[in-house]
């Protein structure tokens, strides 16, 4: 499998060339174009080896995810005996980043998933109240395995290494290494900071690991647009 991301960061387009028999799994609705020999199969977002009972469970989980994560129920699998190519793009403007997981596990905000290839396990992880406060919905996606995951953001993606502690505005978080722990707190500056700074709540990370930031935040976009609406 070969992949290239073009037109970064605002209107990024993912182009994937598949060798004969290779499979790319993508979020429903993400296809822009494909070679006509490539077949597309709709799958429930579940492990391919899962039995009937597991599939029922997957359907339930998919339904919950749709409700809370804004994700689609289904994924599309692209493949062909002769190989071929497919182009993918998310609905929002923003970047696409390929992350080789290499056996490590990472957590992503629920809307970040675009596509995956190779052995990747995806699980919804309940983040509790703090995840809800982090505006990421109550769930994070936990990705692990040896394959590659393609994630998308609103804005450009920057990687920050947390070495001790780092603070991220709750609307600008894309993902982080599962080695990091985080808590939710006010941005600082006492009561004034909480009420008037416009920063609201932030995520305070502790430990060693990578944090992925997005350079825009849909909450701010909505705030800015609301004043302009006809």
């Amino acid at each position, binding site marked *: 499998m070969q992949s290239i991301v073009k037109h970064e960061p605002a209107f990024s387009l993912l182009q994937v060339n598949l060798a004969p028999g290779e499979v790319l799994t993508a979020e429903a609705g993400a296809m822009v*174009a494909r070679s006509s020999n490539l077949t597309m199969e709709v799958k429930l977002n579940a492990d391919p080896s899962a039995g009937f009972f597991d599939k029922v469970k997957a359907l339930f989980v998919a339904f919950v995810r749709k409700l809370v994560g804004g994700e689609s129920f289904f994924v599309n699998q692209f493949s062909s005996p002769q190989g071929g190519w497919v182009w993918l793009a998310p609905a929002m403007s923003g970047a696409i980043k390929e992350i080789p997981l290499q056996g490590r596990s990472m957590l992503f905000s629920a809307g970040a998933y675009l596509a995956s290839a190779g052995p990747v396990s995806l699980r919804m992880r309940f983040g509790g109240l703090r995840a809800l406060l982090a505006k990421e919905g109550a769930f994070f996606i936990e990705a692990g395995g040896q394959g590659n995951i393609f994630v998308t953001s609103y804005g450009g993606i920057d990687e920050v290494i947390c070495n001790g502690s780092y603070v991220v505005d709750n609307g600008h978080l894309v993902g982080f290494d599962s080695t990091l722990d985080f808590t939710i707190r006010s941005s600082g500056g006492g009561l004034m900071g909480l009420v008037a700074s416009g920063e609201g709540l932030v995520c305070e990370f502790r430990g060693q690991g990578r944090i992925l930031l997005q350079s825009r935040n849909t909450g701010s976009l909505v705030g800015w647009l*609301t004043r302009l609406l006809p």
Partner: protein
Amino acid sequence: MQTNILYRPSQSLAQVWLQPGESVMAETGAMVGMTPNVTMQTQAGGVGKGLMRLLGGESFFRNTFTAQGGNGEVLFAPPLCGDMAVLECGMQQWVMQSSAFVASSPTIEVQTQRGGFKGLFSGAGLFTLATQGQGQVIVGAFGALEQVNVDGSMIIDTGHLVAWQSTLQYTVGKSGGGWIASFLSGEGLVCHFQGQGVVYLQSRNASEYGQAVGAMLPAREA
């Protein structure tokens, strides 16, 4: 008319240089800036033509910018973020999505044509625009533009189509194995292009973006 497209792909701006007396026609509201010796005239070119344009998703009127007594410059941009491209017309003619038109040489006739059901389902709207004559057309897209040479056949999501050469044939069909699978896949309808020629794709789908952002905005009055 010489055109330079700056800030591609996301925030593109068309810088058009005109010789003395030369003109360029543009979609209303597309002008960003210009030198003071350029004058603007607003015309519909006849009620029928204006109405057809209105039906096609463009505006009723068009503005004509003319450089007076010297060289002039005009800057144009489409309403949404995204890319622009200059299409040469003459040997080749183009068909485009109705909202793609930004500006053209006055020697080009851009006609609104009914795409019938094909147009309706192809996401390009019920109407498409077709070029006639010799000159240039500036098209705008939502997202980055990709130029694709079709040689044989290719499948393109209907919401990502911008413009294609008139030599190409296309049919609108389902994306996956069956109608139910196509619906569940979220891909809806796709265009199957056949023949030889160039297609311009955009890397985003404006109505998907509109739904994603629009849903977060405060409710409007019915």
